[in-house]
């Protein structure tokens, strides 16, 4: 499955719920694993990760991702590693119902030596060597968006990443939104995902925390910095997951438990 959102609109609340439900052996796809996949990896939900940049942006490492790769904790993690351009092309191919994404990429890089899913083909017209990446067709894609209307049409704006491609290429797409409104009032070329390409819409106010929802709340850069400490050691990570994710029933309780911890 893919939980997408490039820095912005990251579906964190949905990620928490996957941990709460104790899902295991997931293959997780995401260009930038971010804190949400650090949590899913550290909580033992993840067997394989397909990604192109796995850090805590501007802060440093994703310690749980590193611990899984370097020490197999809490379980071994298989990696399928790409560059952003390759992942983007593969998502676009998935949405286009094509077998692979095509790009001028990976030339000179060692990545193709370690990832058998990066292959090269010859352009039938010019003979140029181009990279081919299998289309990404997730069983389930989850994204977070700003708004949906009562019919389930979804509107998002700002940094929109690969969310449209990830939804259009998926068998099922789930969208969490900041608010549900009577009318979207969107201009004609706005990024609207019509209700019939979306399987379900759930309102989860604040559900992109600690990333942001443009027009609603800013990125919580201070929490991204704090995550470096929380996630650095297995004990402090596990205590955080136990208290704030497994110890809460839903996202509202999660938010309350975070507030209590901050005020303690």
């Amino acid at each position, binding site marked *: 499955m893919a939980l997408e959102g490039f820095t*912005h609109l990251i579906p964190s609340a949905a990620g928490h719920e996957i941990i709460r439900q104790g899902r295991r052996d997931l293959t997780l796809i995401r260009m930038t694993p971010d804190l949400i996949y650090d949590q899913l990896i550290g909580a033992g939900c993840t067997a394989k990760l397909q990604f192109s940049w796995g850090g805590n942006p501007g802060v440093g490492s994703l310690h749980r991702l590193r611990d899984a790769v370097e020490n197999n904790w809490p379980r071994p993690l298989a990696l399928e590693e790409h560059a952003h*351009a390759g992942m983007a092309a593969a998502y676009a191919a998935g949405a286009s119902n094509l077998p692979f994404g095509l790009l001028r990429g990976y030339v000179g*890089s060692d990545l193709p030596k370690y990832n058998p899913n990066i292959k090269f083909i010859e352009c039938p017209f010019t003979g140029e060597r181009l990279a081919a990446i299998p289309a990404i067709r997730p069983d389930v894609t989850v994204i977070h968006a700003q708004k949906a209307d009562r019919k389930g049409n979804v509107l998002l704006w700002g940094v929109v990443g690969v969310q449209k491609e990830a939804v259009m290429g998926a068998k099922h797409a789930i969208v969490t939104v900041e608010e549900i409104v009577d009318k979207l009032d969107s201009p004609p070329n706005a990024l609207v995902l019509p209700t019939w390409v979306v399987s379900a819409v759930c309102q989860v106010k604040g559900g992109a925390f600690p990333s942001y929802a443009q027009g609603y709340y800013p990125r919580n850069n201070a929490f991204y910095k704090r995550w470096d400490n929380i996630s650095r050691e297995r004990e402090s990570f596990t205590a955080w997951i136990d208290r704030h994710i497994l110890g809460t029933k839903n996202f509202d309780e999660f938010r309350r438990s975070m507030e209590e911890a901050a005020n303690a």
Partner: protein
Amino acid sequence: MPETTYTADEMMTVAAARMLRNGTVCFVGIGLPSAAANVARLTHAPDVVLIYESGPIATKPTVLPLSIGDGELSETAETVVSIPEMFSYWLQGGRIDFGFLGAAQIDRFANINTTVIGDYHKPKTRLPGAGGAPEIAASSKEVLITLRQNKRAFVNTLDFMTSAGHFEGGDSRKRLGLPGKGPTAVITDLCMMLPDPETKELTLSSLHPGITVDKVMENTGWPLKVAPKVATTEPPTATELQILRDLNERTARAHAGQA
């Protein structure tokens, strides 16, 4: 001009900023490149077009973004495009004059590693990975690289080649078929290095004030070539320092707050 004190990092950022020409289009990496690109925009290059891989085009952030996709970037941009559009139409499409990158490791031909330290399957340190870098390094017309200089970063052999610079030197990059010219300068906290026009090997061309050739050598993992005439980098001007410090101060204030 009065005597001004500044740090090695400030010298690096200012020296890197000066390499960015006004009116050009720059694809900006996060961290040191982002600081340098914005100092350029706030000093000699007001018409530089800054593009971040998250989608913002012609962004003018008042504070430095912590991540590559902070709201500050999209709110101050002329337009924001999707990721597939960014990499296909804008980067692969040949619209980028400068790619501005950082690195964990760099070799004598300015190839860079941001993937692993040690063996790929049993890494000593797992780094974040490629992100946009391989294609930024490939398709930008020129590439600038900025990072701090020490023997852990400036290595004889990369543990992993994430993004090709001048590959094996000489015309090897061209033979690979990479569209852009490749790295045209590497700017560190000690000096600036330029690739030799023929061999493409990095050559020490300018020392920051107070830095010796020996000091650079001590912090480089191979016998670095030295240009016949090594220049001394102009120290940061009072204006450059003021603008950089104000930017850093605004940034620190904006990123503080409750987690």
